[in-house]
């Protein structure tokens, strides 16, 4: 049912976890559809330094989360934003058709985390918290 790559990422996810004080977070999914993912990113000089994820979901959802994290680390924000569902599925050696959309949410969660980071660093109306974080970095 699942490719060997999917099973490897599912059995040994290397990027599962939480980043304390992340630079951006992105949350997708809902329990009704089955899968929920939270992505945490650490950004330095416009480049993704680290990614961690937390995922409630099936084998595909967990494997997707892990490979998206792996693909994003080291990429610039612009490069990371180009990671699509199609690219993710290909990197995993394919996904069962019925899992293509419902479990393949990693790229969306990552995009939201990047968006969250960008809103914090370039806020239309800069709030105190975001300013403080910019100063710290």
């Amino acid at each position, binding site marked *: 049912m699942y490719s060997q790559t999917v*099973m490897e990422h*599912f*059995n040994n*996810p290397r990027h*599962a*976890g*939480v980043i304390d004080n992340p630079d951006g977070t992105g*949350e997708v999914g809902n*329990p*009704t*559809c*089955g*899968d*929920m*993912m*939270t992505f945490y990113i650490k950004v330095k000089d416009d480049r993704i330094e680290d990614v961690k*994820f*937390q*995922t*409630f*979901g*099936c*084998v*595909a*959802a*967990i494997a997707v989360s892990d490979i998206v994290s792996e693909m994003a680390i080291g990429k610039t924000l612009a490069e990371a934003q180009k990671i699509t569902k199609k690219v993710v599925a290909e990197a995993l050696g394919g996904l069962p058709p*019925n899992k293509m959309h*419902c*479990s393949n949410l990693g790229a969306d969660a990552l995009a939201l985390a990047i968006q969250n980071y960008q809103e914090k660093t370039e806020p239309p109306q800069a709030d105190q918290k975001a300013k403080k974080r910019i100063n710290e970095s």
Partner: protein
Amino acid sequence: MKRVYLDHAAATPVREEVLEAMLPYFRERFGNPSAVYDLGADIKEVIEAARAKVAGFIGAPADQVIFTSCGAEANNLAVKGAALAHLKKGRHVIVSAIEHHSVLNSARYLEKFHDFEVTFLPVNKFGQVEPERLARALTPATVLVSIQHASNEIGTIQRLKELTGLCREQGVVFHTDAVATAGQIPVDVKDLGVDLLSLSGPALGAPKGIGALYFRRGVRLVPQIHSGIQENGRRGGTENVPGIVGLGTAAELAGAELAANARRLKDLRNRLVAGVNDRIAGAIFTGHPEERLPGHASFCFEGIEGEALIFLVNARGICANTGSACASKALKVSPTLCAIGLSPEVAQGSMVFTLGGDNDQEDIDYVLAELPLAVEKLRAFSPVWRKKLAAASGG
């Protein structure tokens, strides 16, 4: 690696005695039972002997059992066949919300193509149909009620006698799907008061591809497979002779071993349930605690998804089932888990164990050692579990 098979509701290994009994009917005694010459005609007696064994197993007269290709076909024949035979009386059928897909979708077929009205009866939190609800749902147009004997998903046994009595009083045909109960608890058609009852071979140690339907004398059925007059015209198509012989043998064995088997399974199941409750926090037991199949244990583990859990334990040699949406082809959460009032999130963490003759205490202890590790592994990166822990420590 050790292998522990705990999905006997899905399939059982064909029993040695059953296979032995079947073998001559593949090659030496291959004749078509409808033939006139000896090689075929002799097979008729073989079929009738198997029919008598299956009938005896459920306390029915020998001529009131129809062989089908599976439990699902038996359910289709019962629901569609009985409903369509009573069109003059009305077009209303009642099924419980937690029936097998073969019953639910047969009812939906009647709704869509034959203008039937279908009532999907809700169940209580244990998964039981309450008699008052059935009484309120019955109308003069009701021709059929189909309520399972027990659930494969949550193990709950229905209080059928209370329900069949109501229907008998009003002359409504009552069908029960006994696929889950046969071989686990006594199934007696007279005692239960049912008019139609479905059985499946693979639940009893017979192979896939054979099932049976009991019909009370006088209950009319429109055939669902049209052909010659096999099965007295109630089910066309050349008989699956090896399968029929296998089901007969399996039913005879299951009947003889019933009490001892149930006691043994219940002990093993109690050990499993106690162990899980002891070792895993956030384990929600599903179904009725006492009125349940002896070999059935089912849970929802909070904060995780069932398909992932099944794959993890499978990597350690354990085979079990789940009602999680992600594991179903349609990606829909099990209607049974919804009907007993579980939230979709909790239902996602479903895990179902169905024990069988090949299981022993060592198997259960192995599961109790491996399962907590798998649950813990998935919870370690579950956002749902993290929020639950945060809420618990915050509150």
